[in-house]
């Protein structure tokens, strides 16, 4: 008898948890989670580039693909912020409401960042280490410009 009760309790816990997980994936939550992942990818890729450039003899070939990933992910940005996936969704996000209220500016800064990322890809194909470092800084500044206006916290 006791075994049946324990098994039933365990089963309902598992089913309840599964139902809760299923419930949690509203469109807003999915969008937020997905873009956080993509921005983390950008962060990881950019860190790989910067770490390589910091070395006394940077091996630029190692990080060309990282730079291309940054440019690729940045191109997805305009699809990452569907209406309703902002602070008003009630789900934790660092996206400021201005992403939607100042959308033109947001998209302009995104375009500028894409341009800088493309330039970094080109620079990494060359041989001028100083130019690579300078372009990495330029890209960082364009990331910062958008974050300042459209990202909360930190």
């Amino acid at each position, binding site marked *: 008898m006791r075994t049946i009760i324990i098994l039933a309790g365990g089963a309902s816990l598992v089913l309840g948890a599964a139902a809760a997980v299923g419930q949690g994936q509203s469109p807003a939550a999915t969008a937020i989670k997905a873009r956080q992942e993509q921005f*983390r990818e950008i*962060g*990881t890729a*950019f*860190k790989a*580039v*910067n*770490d390589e450039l*910091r070395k*006394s003899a940077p091996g630029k070939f190692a990080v060309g693909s990282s730079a291309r990933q940054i440019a690729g992910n940045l191109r997805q940005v305009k699809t990452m912020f569907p209406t309703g996936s902002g602070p008003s969704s009630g789900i934790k996000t660092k996206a400021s409401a201005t992403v939607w209220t100042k959308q033109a500016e947001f998209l302009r800064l995104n375009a500028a960042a894409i341009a800088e990322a493309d330039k970094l890809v080109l620079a990494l194909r060359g041989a001028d280490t100083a130019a690579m470092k300078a372009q*990495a*800084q330029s*890209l*960082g*500044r364009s*990331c*910062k410009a958008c*974050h300042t206006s459209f*990202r909360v916290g*930190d």
Partner: protein
Amino acid sequence: MAPPPVTRAVVWDIPVRVVHWALAALLGFSWYSAENEMMEWHRWSGYAVLGLVVFRLLWGFVGSSTARFANSLRSPAEIWRYGASLGRRTPGAGVGHNPIGALSVIALLLSVAAQVTTGLFAVDVDGLESGPLSDRVSFEQGRWFADMHDLSFSILLVLVVLHLVAILFYLLYKRDNLIAPMITGRRRTTGPGLTRVPLWRLPVTILIAGAAMWFVSRGMQL
């Protein structure tokens, strides 16, 4: 038998005093430079703090008697007894850190050490400013260090406020001026002052701390 004479004995050596005030100034400047996005200054301020902390930790083992951790750390019974004496409106008779003061020094030093260490590995979100040792960790780990650098500062701030409140308590309630001795090094006491150590230990300790600071600032790459 006549009571022992009261003298203005030396209780804090110069290294301890310099470290104390330099740390206070640098922590303030580190905060200010971070707030105003003067990150190059912030990094150098942090390296200077690192050098001072390394120096002070070493000096706590090889320095003058009142600088030493061994002389400061007391048994729980002594700490308890000293705590009970805090209600008295008279200055303490001791020289160097009292049992509770010693705990606060350890706590503050550990907190500052944590602040510096987390900064060394921190990674920012713009790809512009990261700590000198951040290439040793992943992006996720570096972001965690950045969050900890933030949290650590809050803890440090609480400890600093407690420290200042304690100093004021001693000054106003116990009528014991602890600020002057930390500037002049001297205190009116019936007991003997500190015991000095051979002078050569000072430049050697400074050199080791300086080397550590330089090495870290280069990303620990030769």
